[in-house]
């Protein structure tokens, strides 16, 4: 369902500048037909999670090739392929692994230590508070150990006064979030016992003079660029430059001004979009000022945009290599050559050596709830957590269900569907707002819940355990799920990743004829390869003899010559 963007053009070569804004599926189809006119290609400009792409839809195909950019969709397709008994060839490139991080609330609201924390604050709290839906809960004024946040006084601060000068408004907001709020936080000594204290920053100290209007006009309509961008208005040309505190302050005020002057109608409905330059400028400035307050190094707009927009870096060469590998694996699938399926890791060192490391497919994971019957267990405070929390944080976010059904014995607590009656929907909505122990069919310690997604043909049993307290920092969700293995490993260090990419829930189904192959591109640090990537080819054998030698020596500094060749198996592809 994606449309083409300018930043796609550096590698998605089926698209041209003139196609920007059009449907990827449709344009890709037309482009391919131009050099292979006789293939039958059907484009669907739609979300793969739509209900019409059901098991019957997938059953039409001999093989599925995935090029998705999010975990949720991948899991969804994975389950449908299993249900349809159609082979799936999966692939992914760097950047994918970094996506699944949530930060504890207090790190964002009170004790940031990295620039990314400041970006999250600026984007999800400040930007959302000023320009987004006013009715949304917002933790902006939450201080550690202080639960009170929605007092009337506090909300008034962010409202733009009737006849208030816009720059005054900007300065007032600035002083509140970077000055007053920090002073409040400092008053809690306990927080700062083992941490560096932040310093409050007031606008008058950084920018004593009122910024004069550009071009002397109230609303600048003659210069399009200046009215759409704070950088342009201020003469800041290079997005790779790191602005000083004063420049960041100017951008903050100017961006706010431009939003309220030129985009008044959008305020209250705006969500952050990485391609909205003004939004990116505002978030960069706000994040930087907060970083300055907490003594965290400042970053350029380019960097901040990458973080705020979850931008995945990508180049044409790597994509071409992975695409080639996908086709080779797909051909093996189509030839039903189950013996020769390979997982291939494409590792790229900073020293730019390339190594394609073939690995045998992993065995089905016994602790994965898709291919085994092990029930999960969930620790949760059944008197405090609502059904809504359970649905959002566990069923959708962790289990990846799209249209879940939740049952307690024979009682249907919640479901999603197109054909529900109005009173059923009302009932479910009411249930969402109840705490677990007060549901029509009470859920307490010892209860077994059944959670299902019919479209994905995926069922799970969850054993509920009541727990009173949770650590705010380590367990920010207030619930702990056990027995559920993550689809991907935690990335401890951006540069060193191990090869366990698909070792867990992305496993092979036990149904015959189905095999899933993962092809991943990762970066590893220079010097020796981390132990996790060492792969003895025989390690993953499912019992059948391994024909090739396992003298895989990945030590980068090794000057010896390597041989991965398999002379006994010369078979035509």
């Amino acid at each position, binding site marked *: 369902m994606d449309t083409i963007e300018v930043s796609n053009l550096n590698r998605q070569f089926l698209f041209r500048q003139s196609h920007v804004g059009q449907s990827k599926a449709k344009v890709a189809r037309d482009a391919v037909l131009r050099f292979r006119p006789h293939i039958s290609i059907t484009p669907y400009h739609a979300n793969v999670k739509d209900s019409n792409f059901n098991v019957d839809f997938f059953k039409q195909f001999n093989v599925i090739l995935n090029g998705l950019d999010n975990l949720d969709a991948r899991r969804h397709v994975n389950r449908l392929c299993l249900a349809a008994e159609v082979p799936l060839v999966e692939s992914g490139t760097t950047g994918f692994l970094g996506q699944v991080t949530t930060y504890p609330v207090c790190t964002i609201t009170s004790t940031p230590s990295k620039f990314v924390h400041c970006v999250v604050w600026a984007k999800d709290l400040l930007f959302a508070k000023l320009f987004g839906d006013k009715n949304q809960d917002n933790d902006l004024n939450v201080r550690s150990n202080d639960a009170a946040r929605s007092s009337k006084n506090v909300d008034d601060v962010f409202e733009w006064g009737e006849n208030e000068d816009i720059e005054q408004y900007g300065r007032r907001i600035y002083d509140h979030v970077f000055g007053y709020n920090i002073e409040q936080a400092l008053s809690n000594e306990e927080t700062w016992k083992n941490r560096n204290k932040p310093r409050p920053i007031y606008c008058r100290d950084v920018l004593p003079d009122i910024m004069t209007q550009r071009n002397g006009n109230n609303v600048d309509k003659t210069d399009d660029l200046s009215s759409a961008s704070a950088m342009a208005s201020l003469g800041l040309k290079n997005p790779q430059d790191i602005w000083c505190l004063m420049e960041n302050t100017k951008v903050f005020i100017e961006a706010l001004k431009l939003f309220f002057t030129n985009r008044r109608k959008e305020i209250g409905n705006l969500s952050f979009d990485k391609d909205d330059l003004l939004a990116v400028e505002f978030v960069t400035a706000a994040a930087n000022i907060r970083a300055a307050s907490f003594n965290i190094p400042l970053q350029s707009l380019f960097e901040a945009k990458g973080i705020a927009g979850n931008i995945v870096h990508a180049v044409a060469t790597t994509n*071409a290599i992975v695409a080639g590998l996908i*086709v080779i694996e797909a051909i093996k699938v189509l030839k039903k050559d189950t013996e020769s399926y390979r997982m291939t890791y494409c590792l790229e060192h900073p020293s730019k050596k390339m*190594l394609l490391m073939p690995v045998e497919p992993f065995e089905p994971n016994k602790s994965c709830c898709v291919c085994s019957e092990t029930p999960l267990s969930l620790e949760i405070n059944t008197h405090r957590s609502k059904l809504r929390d359970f649905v959002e944080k566990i069923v959708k976010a962790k289990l990846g269900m799209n249209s879940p059904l939740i049952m307690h014995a024979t009682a249907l607590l919640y479901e999603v569907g197109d054909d529900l009656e109005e009173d059923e929907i009302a009932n479910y909505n009411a249930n969402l707002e109840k705490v677990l122990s007060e549901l029509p069919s009470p859920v307490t310690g010892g209860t077994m819940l059944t959670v299902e997604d019919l479209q994905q043909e995926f069922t799970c049993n969850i054993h509920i355990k009541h727990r009173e307290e949770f650590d705010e920092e380590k367990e920010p969700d207030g619930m702990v799920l056990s027995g559920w293995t993550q689809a991907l490993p935690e990335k401890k260090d951006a540069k060193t990743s191990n090869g366990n990419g698909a070792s867990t829930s992305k496993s092979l189904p036990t149904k015959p004829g189905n095999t899933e192959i993962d092809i991943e591109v990762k970066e590893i640090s220079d010097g020796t390869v981390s132990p996790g990537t060492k792969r003895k080819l025989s390690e993953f054998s499912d019992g059948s003899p391994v024909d090739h030698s396992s003298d895989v020596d990945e030590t980068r500094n090794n000057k010896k*010559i390597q041989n991965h060749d398999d002379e006994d*198996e010369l078979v035509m592809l």
Partner: protein
Amino acid sequence: MNGEELTEQETALYDRQIRVWGADAQRRLSKSHILVYGMKGTIAEFCKNIVLAGVGSLTLVDDRDVSEEALSANFLIPPDESVCRGKTLAELCCDSLREFNPMVRVSVEKGDLASLGAEFFDKFDVVVISCCSLATKKLINEKCRKLSKRVSFYTVDCRDCCGEIFVDLQKYNYAKKKTDGTTESELQYPSFQEAISVPWKSLRPKVSKLYFAMRVIERFEEAEKRKPREISIEDLPAVLKLKKELCEEQSLNESHIPDTLLERLVMGAKEFPPVCAIIGGTLGQVNSSSVYFLVFFFNVRQPSLIYVEH
């Protein structure tokens, strides 16, 4: 193109790759001039990648007409006879490549590459040749090495589902990261002639059999005065005989070059598109490593990459 800074248009277009290699590298790329010879599938992939990446200029050399074989693996050639008539491979590829990135200057040079003087090669920073005989490879490599300016030289060849890349970066300086900082290192690459003259015995036991097999085929085509890939199954007995001779000469056990492998190389004229993509992609990334020969062999069992290290 531009002065020192990247333009706004370039920054927007190249955003995702600048996040990989940085703005400085992007600037250097936008100033580099590439010469490419032999417009087959793998080279087409390589050209596509570097044009998308925003190289300064790309010059194509290939006066051959379109053939059935060209259409099977070169996606830059439109399958429309009316469009192809009267145009050389280089001209057709040039037209297609220009569409990928209007900011890159793509042009065609006509004539026999081997007859061009050293001053011609001086215009370029990188020279990549494919579909060349042993003699031509040596010749062009020498011309590049004679210049005072450093011109990187690559050869790439794909036969069947095998491929081989040779790299000559001449004198190459790079920074090596260590625990206590970075140190400057220098590598001296061997010429093509020097590389293939390394006695086989000193290379084994870890070098891929494919390396030796390619050398046998190479020598056969040279001895018989054939054009590259002008070889067929009828030649197999003669090729096997040559293999025996070479193994004796090099004191290498014959089992190191399986007959089946040679047979495959002799028969496999056509390129295989996914292999072209992989090797074309790798070629675009092999610009700072200490390996000079990379050999690929994709069979049903596994894809493999073999280094012959410095």
